[in-house]
């Protein structure tokens, strides 16, 4: 089993190869540089360093969003093409789940991973480990950070926040949640591609042709069109 994991859904770019027993190689950067230029050379370099050929791969796991539309599409396009042409299974994992899974494994409570979604909004969900099983208690969604904090306040349980965009929303979260809000250290904010690979290890392969990113949101023109056509009915 040689699983290749690809995450280009946000600024962090991550590539990993794991074989179930161990993480063979992992590459992460967190810089504002063009993913389209760097992903394939990064995959090539990692496989070369790990003495692997494309034909050695047995599965592709990709971060399917949410995140930057373009970023997610680059990873998903490469993952779909590789899985199709190498004739191996393709699995998609929530980009938010990757963050929550690695930081939540040794934490007794709920984790809220987040990415900035502009204009005060965030992409987030709520995850936790229950009896050593990783579970989703609130599905990935987009909403205002202040609305999310207000929702979480009702539960009055401590929430661990994680993600590179935390500095943009930390004050909003603290203002509303006070000491109920806990924040992960900077070393946890880059989604680990090895974690992505691990999450995908036991998941069943999906239909490759129809595989699409989880954008969460419709394209703006699409939602406006639906709105306009609903009014006509």
């Amino acid at each position, binding site marked *: 089993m040689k699983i290749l994991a690809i995450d280009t859904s946000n600024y962090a770019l991550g590539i990993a190869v794991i074989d179930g027993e161990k993480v063979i190689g992992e590459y992460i950067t967190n810089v504002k540089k063009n993913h389209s230029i760097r*992903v*394939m050379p990064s995959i090539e370099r990692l496989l070369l360093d790990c003495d692997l050929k494309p034909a050695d791969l047995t599965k592709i796991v990709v971060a399917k969003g949410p995140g930057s539309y373009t970023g997610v*599409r*680059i990873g998903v396009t490469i993952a779909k*093409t*590789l899985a199709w042409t190498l004739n191996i299974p393709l699995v998609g994992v929530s980009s938010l789940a990757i963050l929550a899974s690695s930081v939540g494994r040794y934490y007794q409570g709920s984790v809220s991973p987040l990415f900035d979604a502009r204009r005060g909004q965030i992409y987030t969900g709520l995850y936790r480990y229950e009896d050593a099983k990783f579970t989703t208690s609130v599905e990935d969604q987009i909403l205002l950070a202040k609305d999310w904090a207000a929702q979480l306040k009702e539960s009055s349980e401590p929430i661990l926040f994680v993600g590179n965009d935390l500095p943009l929303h930390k004050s909003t979260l603290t203002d509303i949640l006070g000491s109920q809000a806990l924040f992960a250290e900077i070393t946890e904010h880059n989604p680990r591609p090895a974690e992505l690979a691990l999450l995908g290890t036991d998941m069943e392969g999906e239909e490759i042709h129809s595989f699409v990113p989880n954008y969460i949101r419709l394209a*703006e023109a699409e939602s406006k*069109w639906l709105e306009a056509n609903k009014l006509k009915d």
Partner: protein
Amino acid sequence: MKKDQYIMGIETSCDETAVAIVKNGREIVANVVASQIESHKRFGGVVPEIASRHHVEQLTVVLEEAMEKANLHFSDIDAIAVTEGPGLVGALLIGVNSAKALAFAHGIPLIGVHHIAGHIYANRIVTEMKFPLLALVVSGGHTELVYMKEHGHFEVIGETRDDAAGEAYDKVARTLNLPYPGGPHIDRLAQEGEATIDLPRAWLEEGSYDFSFSGLKSAVINTVHNAEQRGENIAPENLAASFQQSVIDVLVKKTALAVKEYKVKQVLLAGGVAANKGLRAALEQEFQQVEGIDLVIPPLSLCTDNAAMIASAGSIFFEKGQRAQLSLNANPGLDITTHNYQQ
């Protein structure tokens, strides 16, 4: 005996997801195009974000269909040629990244192709090129006269200073309440009418091969507007015919002048507007009888965006040794002359 060469072409620069396989640069083995036009019609034009989403949905499906039609394995493919630009950046990215993944997975050379070079090379599938030649490229995004002294060498001698001819067609179509895309509708309507309305022709300064269509477009809009104010009815078929005549006059006259100055042996028509019946007829009338000049007009399926044209251009660039790295990026502002220096 020389081994046959098979090039795979991938094209996603706008709203067609296309994959083709071309043998020895000239013979189509597979040519699959998935059009998104039905989806974009709702919006009266191509919406970039939606185009990108559709490409992600379609690309592996189209790849599979092309490979099945060709009945080939990737071990038979000599190179992957992909549209690098110009076009919609988000749309181009899908083709480029998929092409890179394929090239990497199978250790096949990768070639970046300029979209317009592709349109020009669609002609090579019809007939072998004769140099020097002149290509008139007319599409939704382009109006250019390209001079080629040899394979893989491009010189833009004239281009539009404002709207592309295809853009002017779409805007005039909107003024006449015709559905998107407007080109075919105006062309059809023009066949039924007569060019009775006086509209301007932008010749620009003496000796220039550049084009300008925004003045003509405004003149059409004004004509309709003024008639409405006077409560008059303009026959739309006559307006369409007059508009089309004006566009064609300029395109054909400038091409004819360039043909003389550059002493070319072949005139090629390329780009989506090459499907226009009026333009085809006018070019045929101008050049068909001229000795020493061949006029080549590809069939409709090769005029609109497709990947066979990308593979055909890629075949020449492959022979010339042009190779792209895995760092190849989509380049919406790509210049066609970049091909000239990669020999």
